[in-house]
């Protein structure tokens, strides 16, 4: 048992903290306030972060990346999110798919896409699963209905696949250069069995992005539609050439679900750290009835609860990051993601309560943290996200 961070971990953590304090935090509220959801992205900031290594943090050494472990990645996500949750996600979103390229793509695909990714500070990636009528059906496919789930159709024509349909809520859809896209290649089979994953570069013929979604939180982080109208994807861009999804569902698939679970939890941790700091500063500096708020029992109880939950989350996040590094498969990644929902929402709410108690004026930072925190509900903590996790556990139990 050892909670010590090694030098590499410390170094990346410190670097992320500096970048968050010097570069992210100063622009966070202004970016959040931009009304057009397609205009919130800040390329200058992103390029600076990319040059510092945050875009390519998860790329293995053999492909020219820093080859950081999951613990480092968790620490960096938390530090960046302490500056701004959505900006942190804008970086880590790319790690997910660089994990996936590294673990599931052919050498030729790796060569084609990873090297392009490494070379270009504006190369961001995304993955398309959700569709207008298939969100939770993909995550929790019903056993009794093969039609349920995604509808995006992929038909093979010689060495090409023709894709038709659309995806929605897709991260980076309007700015990304490469997408992983799940499509239904065999409509007679269930989502689990009849789906193929494709690598779809932005310049694919018949493929474009559509409307950018206007979210109430995570404003910086862009989600948009992907539209496929007879889009032509070469067979060479099929992921997992053996066909089917088989190997991608295992615990091994840290590039997919499991990393995503940790990602949300680590990001939430950063938001909670920011809320705790903000609340403590307020409690020690603002007075009521001539005394600092921190002297009041009800304020103390709130501060205690925020910090208690945040430290419990930190402990669990670091454990799960370590488990990922050990390639241990468990329900913990999902549970820590569920838990992070409860924690981020309660902690940001308490912070808002403390800031809101003394008058009519909303604190913009406290309000933003709450809005960002509500994003967790459907990504990490609604009942679908919770049942998905526990069903693994129930299945495994004797």
């Amino acid at each position, binding site marked *: 048992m050892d909670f010590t961070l090694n030098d590499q971990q410390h170094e990346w953590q410190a670097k992320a903290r500096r970048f968050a304090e010097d570069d992210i935090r100063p622009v966070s509220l202004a970016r959040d306030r931009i009304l057009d959801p397609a205009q919130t992205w800040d390329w200058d900031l992103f390029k600076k972060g990319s040059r510092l290594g945050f875009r390519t943090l998860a790329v293995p050494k053999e492909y020219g990346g820093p080859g950081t472990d999951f613990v480092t990645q968790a620490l960096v996500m938390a530090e960046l999110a302490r500056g701004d949750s959505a900006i942190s996600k804008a970086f880590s979103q790319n790690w997910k798919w660089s994990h996936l390229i590294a673990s599931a793509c052919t050498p030729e695909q790796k060569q084609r896409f990873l090297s392009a990714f490494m070379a270009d500070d504006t190369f961001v990636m995304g993955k398309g699963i959700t569709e207008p009528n298939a969100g939770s059906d993909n995550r929790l496919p*019903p056993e009794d209905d093969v039609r349920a789930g995604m509808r995006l159709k992929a038909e093979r024509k010689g060495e090409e696949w023709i894709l038709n349909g659309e995806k929605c809520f897709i991260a980076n859809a309007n700015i990304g250069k490469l997408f992983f896209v799940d499509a239904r290649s065999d409509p007679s089979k269930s989502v689990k069995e009849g789906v193929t994953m494709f690598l779809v570069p932005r310049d694919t013929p018949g493929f474009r992005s559509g409307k950018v979604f206007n979210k109430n939180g995570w404003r910086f982080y862009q989600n948009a539609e992907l539209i496929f109208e007879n889009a032509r994807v070469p067979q060479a861009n099929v992921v997992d050439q053996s066909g089917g999804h088989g190997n991608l569902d295992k615990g091994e698939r840290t590039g997919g679900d499991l990393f995503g679970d940790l990602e949300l939890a680590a990001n939430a941790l950063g938001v909670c750290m920011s809320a705790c700091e903000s609340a403590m500063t307020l409690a020690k500096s603002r007075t009521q*009835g001539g005394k600092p708020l921190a002297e009041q029992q009800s304020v103390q109880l709130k501060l205690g609860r925020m910090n208690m939950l945040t430290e419990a989350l930190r402990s669990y996040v670091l454990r799960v990051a370590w488990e990922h590094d050990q390639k241990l498969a468990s329900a913990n990644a999902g549970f820590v993601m569920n838990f992070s929902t409860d924690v981020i929402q309660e902690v940001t709410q308490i912070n*808002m309560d403390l800031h809101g108690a003394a008058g*009519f004026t909303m604190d913009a930072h406290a309000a933003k943290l*709450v809005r960002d925190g509500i*994003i967790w509900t459907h990504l990490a903590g609604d009942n*679908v996200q919770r049942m998905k996790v526990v069903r693994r556990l129930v299945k495994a139990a004797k």
Partner: protein
Amino acid sequence: MYDLHLSAEQLEIRDTVREFVANEIRPMAIKPARMEALDRRPPHDVLLKASRMGLRTLALSEALGGAGADALTSCIVAEELAAGDPDVAAVLVETSLLSHLLFDRLMTPAQRDRFLPLLAADDSSQLALASHEPGSDTELGINYHRSVPLAPAVQCAATRTPSGDWLINGAKTFVPNATLAALVAVPVKTDSKAPAGQGVSTLLVPNNAPGMIVRELEQNAGWYHGLRADITFEDCRVPGDHLLGEEGNSPLAAGIELAGRSIPAVAAMNVGLGRAAYEAALDYAGIRVQGARRIIEHQAIGTLLADMAIRLETARTMVWKAAWVADNPAAVAQRSVADLPLTTLARVYSAEAVHRVALAAAEVFGGMGVMRDIPMHKYVQDALIFLHSGMSPDDGKLRIAEALAEFRRA
């Protein structure tokens, strides 16, 4: 005799307002700019139509041209309005309650004759009470259960000129309805030698009074619904007979609950907002299919909806009780209802309950629940505003606790 039947008039006005909301308020409320909470200002035409239906002067006595609604009826209407749009509701409810308080209860007949035409002349004009001053602290907080006076000091001052007029100088802040008001009731310090909290009178200031400067506050940074403004008085002159009630003994001390009716009405608006969120979720759950079944048929969603229904119904039930008791205070002495600060109970309970309802409703909507294109995210935001506006749950609980301990400030 215990009886929960509503009167025919109450049922009718509820239907009428509900229809008005469906036809006139909802279409406006779901416009994109309003969805984004960029501009939550109540449209003039909606206020005008509502006023012509009598909603602006709902609580004003029939003798003076109002509908003479009691506290319960006011709550029923407030809920309906807020289910459509809480900002519209906030403006109308404030004026309605003040019309009763000022005209029916506090003005002299001469004042009534003088000011009623101001209100009647323009259907879009409202009433305001300027109770809050910059920097004043209305929280119980650190002073919980300590024998210190809590009435905030009134700094805004008025002096009499030799001609008998009042000259007002000072500032008020976060005054609801001030930019729309025909008449503003302003507590002012008239005895400069009196200790803090005493020597306060209330003056009635028409909106055209010279030296009164009203500046609307930006809506999106505030913990309130409706419109609020800062008011500055610079040698603002009003005639001597604009004094409301006794000199040096204001009937509208800061923090007054508008004769017990204000808090239940805010709580009723809160319930209305919660109902909007709940009904949207219920409708959606009956349409959206996942796992080959409508999601309402899933245990997890069913349980969530049931929980929302329980919270809303208990909240509404408490609000109505508090409203009825506000009009029937003798029922406490007669021991039909408990001797508790019921308005505070209802306010705290409904704010917490509706906050949970709104979050659960957003959960039912999945990813759509956070999109600014549909109202759900705004319900969540509005629920947060109710949680903090006026009296926070924390503050309310400390006030209740003092009452439970039968603590009375000297």
